[in-house]
């Protein structure tokens, strides 16, 4: 590689390792939540039909509300992730990058 960056030094930096750990925990955690919530829908529709059929808002039943909530939850996860990434991850990453490669803006 012709790149002038010292990648090993970046990766060895304690700040980098802290950011990497934090991002991994955060991302995989959110991923797991979203998968569990999503697959609860087909599982519920198949095995908890009596619950899904319960009418709670006029003719609207639990199943319909649950399907609608999937949209809200997906949007909330996206919103939450981008908030944390914009606020924390980008700033922490920029600090590390600035120390190692002042010429490359990131």
């Amino acid at each position: 590689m012709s790149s002038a960056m010292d990648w090993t030094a970046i990766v060895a930096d304690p700040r980098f390792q802290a950011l990497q750990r934090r991002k991994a925990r955060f991302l995989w955690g959110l991923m797991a939540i979203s998968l569990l919530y999503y697959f609860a829908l087909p599982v519920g529709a198949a095995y908890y039909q009596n619950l899904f059929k319960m009418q709670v808002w006029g003719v609207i039943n639990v199943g319909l509300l649950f399907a609608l909530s999937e949209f809200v939850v997906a949007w909330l996860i996206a919103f939450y992730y981008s908030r944390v990434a914009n606020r924390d991850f980008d700033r922490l990453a920029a600090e590390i990058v600035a120390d190692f490669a002042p010429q490359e803006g990131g």
Partner: protein
Amino acid sequence: MKNLHPLFGWFAAASLPLLVPFAAHAEDVTPANYRWLTFAVFAAVILMTMYITYLAAKKVRSAADFYTAGGGISGLQNGWAIAGDYLSAASFLGIAGLISQYGYDGFMYSVGWLVAYITVLLLIAEPCRNIGKYTLADILAYRNDPTKARVVGALSVITVSTFYLTAQMVGGGVLVKTLIGIDYEVSVVAVGILMLGYVLFGGMVATTWVQIIKAVLLVIASLLIVMLVWTPYGFSLPAFMADIVGDPKVQSQVAKLLGDPAKTMTAAELGQRFLEPGLYLKAPIDQISLGLALVFGTAGMPHILMRFFTVRTAQAARKSVVWAMAIIGGFYLMTLFLGFGAAHLVGPAVIAGVDPGGNMAGPLLAQFIGGGPQSLWGNFMLAFVSAVAFATIVAVVAGLVLAAASAMAHDLWVGVVRRGENVPAQEQVAAARVATVFVGAMAIAIGVAAKGQNVASLVALAFAVAASANFPCVLLTLYWKRCNTHGIVAGMVIGTVTAVGLTLVSPNLTYPKLVRAAAHKVLDSASAKRAAIEAAIASHDAVLMANVTRDTVALDKAVKKANDDLKKVEGKETSFMGLEKPVIELKNPGIISIPLGFLAVILFSLWRRDKRAEAMWDEVVARQVTGMRVSKPAHY
């Protein structure tokens, strides 16, 4: 590029006569006296996209311009373009149609298409932006053996794109034929030539703008219809739903779907059943398998991944997914009203009468809500929705062709054959254009050849291959230190082969013996049913008489279908694969092939080591975590 403009003139001149058949043969849904309107709206949409292509063509000078619009697309623009790339005719018309026919299950089906973007947002979009340049194989080639990674990556991209492309071309041909009554072959060629024009002359710049325009038009059309449908209820969801449940057309649709068990149910119970699961999706394992293919497959779709190379930074990639999720999710929420509204106002039986798959629910609802088949506004709405559907097919096909062409030109020609060493910019662009023409011609040929084939399962197969081959390879090369060339090659091959193989022995194919048995069963019971109808007529009983016409029509239809089916399988004993019956009952292979794809990457990576992959890990992880991107095209 000076010689481009005369050529572009030829393209424009060649495309315009394609509009004539729209006006000449329009007969199906649009009444004859309103053909001019359909013609005008189509012409407006096509001319607008062609003008943009003309502007874009001036900007395409380098390979980077052609593949990624020079990285000059903003996050917001890219969000709209992703939505335009992703919302195919299948989701635009198909899901509204499913809801109009099967109620709840159709809506439930739409959820996975949005949730898929969580995977893209959290795990894929930003690191791909940082590590790739033009193609999916760029990401794989970064730390693995470049030649091997490019060959398997490109082959997989071409496989996925071809499956998806075939489904789009055939579906699009049928759709345009039904909407405006032109011949299937003409509509396939029209879609193909327009798409080819956009991609060939305007590259990613034009493709992006065609996708943005299409997404904006799609949202406007849907919003307009939703407003008109929902306003009478004061925007109350329970009031709207109460009308659906209380509709006799909906109730008789549920009775038809349920068969005998419906006889003991009251009308209110039948209506309510429309809002409950189980009318369409019967086997939970199939749904979960399809769900897995969607939520992981989208993140491995080459035409979606490619969109992240058109923005400059990881932040812009992030922003574009969030926008895309807002647009795509908002659109699927609107299909709730389109689908249920069509069931209530048009009626499931009428919709299925025009197109058995229910695809015409949205267009028919638009016509109804505008004032009906004999009104100016009704036909304007129909023409508008039809034009948007046409633009949808063209935009999605353009994205797919660009992805397949980039795999051929950038990965196979420039990367593998020419070893990526000092390939002049002109040659790169020329290779991209040649590949585009090749893929485009292939798409048209396949579209014409596959006339009349049932291609619905090809979309699911495309997602299954993307989820089983592309996704494990991309994910693990980005996040797992030990991942290497051996794992990538094995994962691509095993993921693709198991996904395709399992589909080939699944119930998705036609099994002549089973078809024949089912047809004979219908024909054998027909005489008993005929006798029952005759008895009803003879009885002069008002209650029994009421259903005579409907039952006769239904019976005649069933008998005709059974006879058609028998004719289709005449002289055949086994499926395309030489099987008498499916080996597995699973309709979507995802639940088996996705874990196998992951397992292959992991085991083969652990089995043999690869020094380069490990040496490059620090760089990959540093770029992945910090968002530093590859700025120079240095790696082959």
